[in-house]
């Protein structure tokens, strides 16, 4: 009962935040609402007993990405979103309605939350639940799966994070001034 109440409250706030983000034009407020949206999502994950996912969502979604978007906002001049051009609003509306209807139709095929007979819960999940402690000695099953059983996947994820860092460095890393001074000289001047 209390779970239902929390879920309804969180989802209501989530919907209100989403609508507010669409309606607003002040970019600073929209970024703040993005952070609130992530935090509410993290709350929903906690209610669904996915503490690890909630942790990541709160740290990355509400924390770091809000920070990075604010940093980007500080770089750009316009703090107001431009008003969209008023022509042919029916086309995006049709696309959004059809996509939304397809997604809602898709949810009817998803098994119920916590259904023990659902296909994902009858494949390898029972093995992890029964054997992960004996195999790895790690009480947190999520860590056991991420770090040990699916270690190769996690290596790929770390490689993705590293690649993203390299890409940002290539695009934004060197801080050239107008007089084309070298980066090394500039760094020594700055410090």
């Amino acid at each position: 009962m209390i779970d239902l109440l929390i879920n309804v409250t969180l989802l209501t706030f989530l919907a209100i935040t989403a609508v507010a983000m669409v309606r607003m034009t002040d970019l600073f407020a929209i970024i703040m609402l993005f952070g609130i949206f992530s935090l509410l999502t993290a709350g929903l994950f906690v209610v669904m007993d996915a503490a690890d996912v909630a942790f990541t969502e709160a740290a990355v979604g509400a924390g770091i990405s809000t920070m990075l978007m604010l940093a980007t906002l500080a770089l750009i001049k316009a703090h107001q979103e431009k008003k969209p051009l008023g022509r042919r609003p029916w086309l995006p509306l049709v696309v959004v309605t059809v996509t939304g209807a397809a997604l809602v139709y898709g949810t009817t095929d998803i098994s119920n939350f916590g259904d023990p007979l659902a296909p994902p819960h009858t494949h390898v999940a029972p093995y992890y639940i029964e054997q992960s402690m004996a195999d790895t000695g790690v009480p947190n099953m999520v860590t056991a799966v991420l770090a040990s059983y699916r270690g190769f996947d996690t290596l790929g994820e770390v490689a993705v994070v590293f690649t993203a860092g390299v890409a940002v460095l290539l695009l934004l890393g060197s801080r050239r001034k107008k007089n084309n001074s070298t980066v090394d000289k500039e760094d020594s001047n700055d410090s």
Partner: protein
Amino acid sequence: MTHNLILRVVAKLLIPIIILFAFYVQFHGDFGPGGGFQAGVIFSAALILYALVFGLDAAEKIIPRWLLHLLAALGLVLYAGVGVVTMMLGGNYLEYGVLGSTQVSGQHLGILLIELGVGVTVAAVMLIFFFSFAGRSRS
């Protein structure tokens, strides 16, 4: 930036706690929620807070950029290196069991090392993101 006394004092109080929490999440990830990814993000958040309150130059004195570039690569190399070591010891790639005398102790060591690699890379890359974005507004 010189007059924000309350901000400076609160940040100085908070930053050690945030870093301590990051280490807790890093090394307690086997037993509770968390792990290298979350710990890296929290650790970088502490340094970003420092950079926001005390300025980017002060933050770059603590962790210079070349060190961040090195750490980002080092974490990935540590992770991949664990796999290579397990292969050298006769196991499959990332089969941690061969690292220790027993299966469980090997798994413990392997998971500890690769989570450390994840944490180091994530923390360094998040800081590279922030420094790159924030650094551009100066010039």
